[in-house]
């Protein structure tokens, strides 16, 4: 087990190394070079030359790349051009918000998608099955930001059921412990804060959940259908096992394995999908900051955040692999 984890961690190095090269080339290719991004437009040629020297931009490319890599490894991802604060600080300031949003989306997707997919498979060919399959196809084909806008206009602006922006209502006071609003609220028993935060999470969470929900429903359905056709399920039924036992112990347990993998893959991509959802709801997380950074051409933030999101994506999937090997005895035996 330990060897497996260590080997997987070592495999991260070439991936992240390659990504760092990509981002480095990107920074090099900026119109006019990085000094144009840092200096005002009316700076003189001497000022530019001086900045180039002080940034080490007159060194050979290889030396520059190694310096870039050293800074990254030391946790120095540069400073945001908008706020002037270190990129790493900006990231961790916004991480809890996006994390809460991603967890909400995943909860919605799993609690609806799993039962729906299972029922659709059990009642194959019925109206329920048709609705589940059609709905999930529709979910995959709807642009996330459009769905987010529709939810916002209908449920927040027209019906007024949910707040339309931010993490908390203005004027609500809360004790900050971890940065996770819901968790803090529960720890300090400020239930009004918890309720308010959950209400703010509902609509963006639902929008972000649309694609994972569609994928989980379809995967569960396909997987359950496949397992229900297996010989061991027929054997279990034939030897007179209780129907519920067959369904839970034989069908569900085996059918869920590929779904777990899908959940992991989807969890990682939620952080990328958050870019589209958060900006619609002005949700102060990683995604809306990336959105602003693309508008403002804040390159240090873009490169840094992309590197961090990719790292997280890869790490989440490592966790999924580990949990997977715990779930499946065949992997454990190996």
């Amino acid at each position, binding site marked *: 087990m330990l060897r497996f984890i260590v080997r997987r961690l070592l495999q991260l190095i070439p991936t992240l190394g390659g990504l760092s090269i*990509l981002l480095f080339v990107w920074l090099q290719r900026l119109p006019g070079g990085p000094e144009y991004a840092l200096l005002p437009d009316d700076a003189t040629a001497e000022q530019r030359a001086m900045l180039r020297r002080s940034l080490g931009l007159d060194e050979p490319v290889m030396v520059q790349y190694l310096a870039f890599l050293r800074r990254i490894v030391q946790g120095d991802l540069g400073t945001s051009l908008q706020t002037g604060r270190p990129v790493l600080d900006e990231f961790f300031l916004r991480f809890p918000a996006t994390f809460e949003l991603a967890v909400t989306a995943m909860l919605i997707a799993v609690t609806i998608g799993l039962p729906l997919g299972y029922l659709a498979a059990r009642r194959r060919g019925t109206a329920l099955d048709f609705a589940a399959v059609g709905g999930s196809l529709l979910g*995959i084909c709807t642009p996330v*930001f*459009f769905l987010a806008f529709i939810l916002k206009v209908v449920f927040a602006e027209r019906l007024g059921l949910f707040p339309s922006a931010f993490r908390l209502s203005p004027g609500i006071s809360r004790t900050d412990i971890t940065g996770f609003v819901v968790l803090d609220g529960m720890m300090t028993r400020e239930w009004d804060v918890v309720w308010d935060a959950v209400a703010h999470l509902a609509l963006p969470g639902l929008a972000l959940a649309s694609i994972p929900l569609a994928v989980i429903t379809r995967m569960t359905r396909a997987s359950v259908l496949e397992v229900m056709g297996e010989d061991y399920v027929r054997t279990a039924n034939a030897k007179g096992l209780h129907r519920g036992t067959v369904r839970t112990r034989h069908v569900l347990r085996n059918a869920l394995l590929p779904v777990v993998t899908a959940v992991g893959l989807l969890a990682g*991509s939620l952080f*990328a999908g958050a870019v*589209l959802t958060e900006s619609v709801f002005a949700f102060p997380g990683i995604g809306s900051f990336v959105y602003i950074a693309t508008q403002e051409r804040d390159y240090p933030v873009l490169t840094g955040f992309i590197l961090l999101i990719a790292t997280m994506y890869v790490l989440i*999937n490592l966790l999924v*692999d580990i949990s997977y090997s715990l779930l499946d005895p065949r992997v454990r035996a*190996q």
Partner: protein
Amino acid sequence: MPTTPSSQNPSESPETQGAEDTMTEEKVPFHKRKAAKVDRLAELMGDRSDGGHGAGIWREAFARMRRSPMAITGAIIVAVFLLVALFSPLIAPYSPTSQAWGSEVFPNRNEFVGPRAENWLGLDHLGRDMFSRMVIGARQTLMVGVVATLVGFLFGALLGGVAGACSVLGGRWGRQVDNAIMRVIDMMLALPALLLAVTVAALIGPSLTTVMIAVGVAQIPIFARLLRGAMISQGNREYVLAAQAMGVRNHKIALTHILPNSMGPVIVQSTLTLATAIIDAAALSYLGLGNPNANFPEWGTMLSEAQRFLSSAPSLAVYPALGIIITALGFTLLGESLREALDPKLRK
């Protein structure tokens, strides 16, 4: 040295391949598992081609698709979309950029013009005919989808084809080339597609070309994986051995024997990618990485433009959104039913 699932396969007989595949699927790292799923499609289709029942695999699949309501719906949607896109200059009653009714629309006063006899879908926020913009936009949207898919297809097929050919025919040296190419592909696969597209788009600046390239680049690893997997599963077949025994040159075996037999899964994927490309292009437009000239009618750009008026004139956003959703649905239905028709496991 960890091996990818399909690079182990050449040594396996076709009978054990299926079982081996499900086992490896659980042990390999995540991005390879994503890859393994792609490879499965490649193999399934590869296994079918020697059925020997007279009727070709494609003919059988089309016969099956004719009975599937999913496939028919998809085909009709795609056909209508293609017709509208191809003949859009003939269909559109007005110029999509002319602000002929500009004096009737006041977005700042929430005054919009809905559907009426001369403007079937009403006017947009600058007083342009919405129907004409939708029709001409279909053509642009089709172009974005097709070019993005072509970028992914061409570069992906090139990388995957070289990797597959090297792995099958290149001996030890070839397997090293295959390994090196696949490392790069797996790295690309390790990034969420949208993030990859945003990175590329930010790299080359906002334009419609950017969107097409960025969305296409994000599809490269999938195409590469697919073609390589299909080629490797074809590489074990007797006809390859026969060609080798007859002294046919390696590059000729790869190009004229293996490649044509490996294109099935890639064609299926192209259909599905057209849908993803149109949706992803809309997302990039929304992020401000699309065409900076909003005059130009393209559904993604129109949709992101119209978001500003969503609460006062929702139809401005709903038309392009419906266009995107229905078109993507059409391509997805067609692609999925084609895949089902070709997958022996799902055939019941």
